């Protein structure tokens, strides 16, 4: 079971490039038709240097380009089948657009027990910087682990 000793644990840095083809696949999948995300002219009219990414796409970039998928699970010995997504938060500091190369630095910032140990909540915070060293976002994810009943 994950305990307080996991707090402070850092995971492998992920480098991800915002590629137009992959982004279009995501936009098509969620049925996003806003021209801002698809048309460079519309994006530039809104003040961007190129088409921006939609609000949740940072989460996807980190997963897509991770060299070790679900590293936090394997590193903390958590069974993927017992994990649910509890909470998610994005704080946006600067635009992220097609062509950017982003660096994600994830770390565990909290572990807590719920419902008398039936569930463990793990908070993972990730700072995101771009190719110019600008911090573009902070991401926080809370995963819920459904613990097996003690036998």
């Amino acid at each position, binding site marked *: 079971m994950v305990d307080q000793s996991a707090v402070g644990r850092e995971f492998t840095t992920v480098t991800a490039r915002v590629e137009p083809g992959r982004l279009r696949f*995501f936009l098509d999948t969620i049925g996003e038709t806003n021209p801002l995300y698809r048309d460079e002219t519309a994006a530039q009219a809104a003040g961007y240097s190129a088409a921006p990414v939609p609000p949740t796409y940072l989460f996807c970039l980190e997963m897509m*380009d991770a060299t070790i998928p679900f590293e936090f699970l394997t590193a903390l010995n958590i069974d993927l089948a017992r994990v649910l997504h509890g909470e*998610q938060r994005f704080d946006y500091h600067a635009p992220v657009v097609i062509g950017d190369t982003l660096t994600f630095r994830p770390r565990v910032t909290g572990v807590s027990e719920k419902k008398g140990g039936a569930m463990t909540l793990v908070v993972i915070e990730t700072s995101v910087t771009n190719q110019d060293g600008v911090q573009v976002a902070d991401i926080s994810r809370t995963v819920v682990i459904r613990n097996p009943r003690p036998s």
Partner: protein
Amino acid sequence: MTPIIGARIVHKEFPAITRHRLALYCGASGDHNPIHVDLDFARKAGFPDVFSHGMLVMAYLGQALTDAVPPPRLRMFSTRFVAITQLGARLTCEGHVSEFVEHDGERCAKLALTTKDENGDLKLTGEAVIAL
């Protein structure tokens, strides 16, 4: 933009979530957790069927949000996944202006967000902070 407290400024409905949509989202998002696409895996994990990625639901809510609010004004977007979103769910995303706040020295509006299925069951609650 001069929003009024309590005004509903976000509202969008989405088509029923299909197995095909979950398979596409698996590829498009990089979230390859089999629990969302592999019925055998889902059953072994104790679920009756596969179910939606929480982040697909949040992506829909984000889409509803940036239909209503220019993306450059978005400062924060958060959600709590209240309940599992089942296959076939037809989601409605809504957002109301809840208060005005100072956020990193900027005057902002806070939105209270919800996503419900076709039965009115709450799937997700959230907040967004929008620069005025």
